[in-house]
């Protein structure tokens, strides 16, 4: 196996495009090294992106935030402005694994690992985040919802790498929230998860909303019907009930060691409702 | 003479009796006589039988004496974690 650590995105793309055999991008390694340990992958080439400058920072711009692909989730948690603007995205990122894992793992890694239960993905989808993808044919922007296509599968092509994630700018009355259900308090994989991102208009009426669910389908879902249920409301009980049933209706889960179809379908409604309440309160809405 | 109580699985080898009366002064003598009188008990003794004398369980020490009038219970050998 070869370990390569390029210093800019172009070199990374070149290495990824030209290398033969099983080629893997290494960011935090918290998924890749586990798969290597289990013998599920045997890379011929590993391209470590942590030495690439463009991938290593969090930038606040007029359009929002640009988060480099190699930035650890711990660093997201330490970024005060990001935490203030996108509390849901940050709390999702900070739920991945332990403090030890946090020191390594990245949201781009979480996205590209394409697990249906990935914590940060529903939050990023609800946030309307965009992945900046570099490849042999240049740069393109991709909705995060379109990166994962199924368990372990992405839409990225040979030679492509995500350089950063762009989060939009926030109005004062916007907030997001992410909740997951796990049997343990920490160190666990989401059995089901929900992210809600919303913006309030006058009198606490929800002007805009996005709702996303994790671990209830082959990939994280955007649930427009759930968003529709609360837009134009002040998150009254009827709206919450509608959102909850829209969440359950959107579920297409499997029975596995972590949960059952029935359980996931039921709890998706509960988490959708609770996440909406949390985001609403964060945005300044009063009930 | 001592009345020796048997746990359930041992009873068939003594013809179904819940207890047997044996003249024995020690655990060793008890086992020897049990084997003589009830040959079908031998596999159990080989596998390991604990002897409770007045509520104190002896797993290994066959030299223990059986005081006159004491309560004697045979139990399967116990394992632990």
């Amino acid at each position, binding site marked *: *196996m*070869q*370990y390569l*650590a390029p210093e800019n995105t172009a070199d990374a793309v070149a290495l990824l495009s030209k290398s033969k055999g099983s080629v893997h991008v*290494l960011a*935090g*390694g*918290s998924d890749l*090294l*586990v798969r*290597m*340990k*289990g013998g599920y992958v045997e*890379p011929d080439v*590993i391209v*470590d992106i*942590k030495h690439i400058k463009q991938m290593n920072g969090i930038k606040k711009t007029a359009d929002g935030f640009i988060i480099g692909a190699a930035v*650890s989730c*711990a660093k997201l948690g330490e970024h005060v402005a990001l935490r203030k603007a996108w509390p849901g995205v940050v709390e999702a990122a900070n739920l991945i*694994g*332990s*403090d*030890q*894992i946090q*020191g*390594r793992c990245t949201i781009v890694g979480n996205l590209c690992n394409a697990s249906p239960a990935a914590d940060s993905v529903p939050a990023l989808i609800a946030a309307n985040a965009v992945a900046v993808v570099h490849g042999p044919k240049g740069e393109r922007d991709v909705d995060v919802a379109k990166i994962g296509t199924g368990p372990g599968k992405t839409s990225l092509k040979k030679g492509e790498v995500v350089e950063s994630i762009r989060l939009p700018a926030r109005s004062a009355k916007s907030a997001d929230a992410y909740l997951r259900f796990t049997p343990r*308090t*920490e*160190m666990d994989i989401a059995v089901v998860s929900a992210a809600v991102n919303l913006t309030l208009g006058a009198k606490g009426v929800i002007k805009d909303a996005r709702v996303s669910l994790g671990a209830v389908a082959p990939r994280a879902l955007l649930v427009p019907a759930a968003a529709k249920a609360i837009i134009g409301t002040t998150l009254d009980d009827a709206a919450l009930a509608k959102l909850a049933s829209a969440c359950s209706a959107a579920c297409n889960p499997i029975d596995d060691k972590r949960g059952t179809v029935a359980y996931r379908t039921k709890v998706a409604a509960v988490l959708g409702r609770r996440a909406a309440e949390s985001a609403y309160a964060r945005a300044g809405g009063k009930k | 003479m001592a009345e020796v109580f048997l746990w359930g699985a041992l009873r068939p080898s003594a013809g179904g009796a819940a207890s047997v009366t044996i003249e024995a002064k020690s655990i060793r003598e008890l086992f020897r006589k049990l084997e003589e009188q009830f040959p079908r008990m031998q596999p159990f003794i080989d596998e390991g039988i604990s002897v409770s004398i007045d509520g104190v369980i002896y797993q290994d020490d066959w030299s223990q004496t059986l005081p006159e009038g004491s309560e004697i219970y045979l139990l399967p050998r116990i394992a632990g974690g």
Partner: protein
Amino acid sequence: MAMLVSTTINGDATDFSCEADETLLDALRNRLSMTGVKEGCGTGDCGACSITLDGALVCSCLVLGAEAQGRSIETVEGMSDGEKLHPLQQKFLEHAALQCGICTPGFLVAAKVLLEKNPNPTESEIRYALAGNLCRCTGYDKIVRAVQDAAAQMRRA
């Protein structure tokens, strides 16, 4: 293909060679005989192999040896200052915060990072900060108390 990696470990310049796909945990244990770094799972789920890498708390089983090039590593072996134990080490002993002791190095490294960031953590903060370190013997009670006591002592110092 073996690689030569130059690092600083517990303050000492240290070179080691390792395979490209070898974890830092394996390199520390097998190449440098630093067996204070324990392997409980090899998949980042138990924290027994916790170290710091340029100050960040990580599981060394989820780091490639090659990634340590030019970086600074700290392990339990570097915690005491000569004869003087780190307050956490001392309090773990006094509170009997270890039974079998296999998880102890990882707990000590993680707790040290916690107290550097947060010198006065609540019980709940300690519990969440140490959630990546599994202990099967103690039920965590005495570990949490030892960390609280060490934190108090370090605040006084």
